[in-house]
């Protein structure tokens, strides 16, 4: 399974899907999380930081990771919150999935 969501988590809230559907749901979750996280990160930056970030488009991942940790002090909290919000949404709509 190469999705972001774990199958055990889905099963724990009563969502039992076959592998394909589970992967698809997980990827859908990942895309949504991508969008929300990037928006939050960008919200935290000022103009200079934003210009710096633009230079990392083709840079290596390690530098980017270091840059994020340095420039977005609330990064962990942002990610935790976005994950919690998405998981909560899935749990709320578990009957319809």
């Amino acid at each position: 399974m190469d999705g972001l969501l774990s199958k055990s988590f889905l099963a724990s809230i009563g969502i039992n899907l076959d592998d394909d559907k589970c992967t698809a749901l997980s990827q859908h979750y990942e895309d949504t999380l991508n969008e929300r996280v990037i928006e939050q990160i960008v919200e935290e930056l000022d103009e200079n930081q934003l210009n710096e970030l633009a230079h990392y488009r083709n840079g290596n991942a390690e530098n980017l990771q270091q840059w994020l940790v340095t420039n977005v002090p609330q990064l962990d909290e942002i990610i935790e919150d976005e994950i919690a919000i998405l998981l909560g949404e899935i749990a709320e709509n578990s009957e319809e999935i």
Partner: protein
Amino acid sequence: MNRLKQSINTYRQERHQRKQDALIDYAHNPSPRPLDDLKTDDKEILGEHSDAFFRDRYRRKTDSIVEKIGKAEDKKDIPTVRENFMSYRNNRAQVKIDRINAKIDSSSNSFLSRQINRQRRQTVNVLATKNKIRSHTIGKIEAKRKARPEELQKKIDNYVKEKVDAMYRKALRREMRRHDVGRLNPMKRAEFLAKVTPELRKQLTRQAILNVRKNNIKKGRLGMDYRVDNTLDTRKVGDYGRTIE
């Protein structure tokens, strides 16, 4: 010294004479205005022996006021612009009312009552349908909720609670940012978001998630094999299809 006293006396006598002359002049040249127009008499106000200059000034002023009163009195029946407008508006409203009344008068009672009844019936039906759908949906949700095992429902409630807490923290951060003057202007932010490539978007998120991934893996929420494939253009597996723009 004597010369000074003499000149002062002379001046006083001349001034007295001028006053007497003014009084005589005023008596022989009364104001042309009718006496009835005056509420008060200038002699009563200024005194019998007041200066002719002030009496004349007072007389002219009162004449002017009387003249203004007369003009205003003449114009009292002419409507002002505002009154004209008001009457026009009232007339227009009246014209409309008359027109509607005429329509009602000319149409049969049965036609009108049928129209009104139909509209009323439609409204009641729409409201009833809306209520029915709403209560049905609520009933379904409640039934599902009751059908769930208690343990499962507790877990779901817990996730929902965490979600609400996270949303609260998010809102708090937004509020704190709002008061931070040095932060990015919303227009610049929107421009950047519009330009950001999907690759950068994914790369950023992945790197960000790596920071907190361990905890989430420990909690069993996130998959162990999470990876980002930047080469994919579309993702469609099962019922969940999504095109990467």
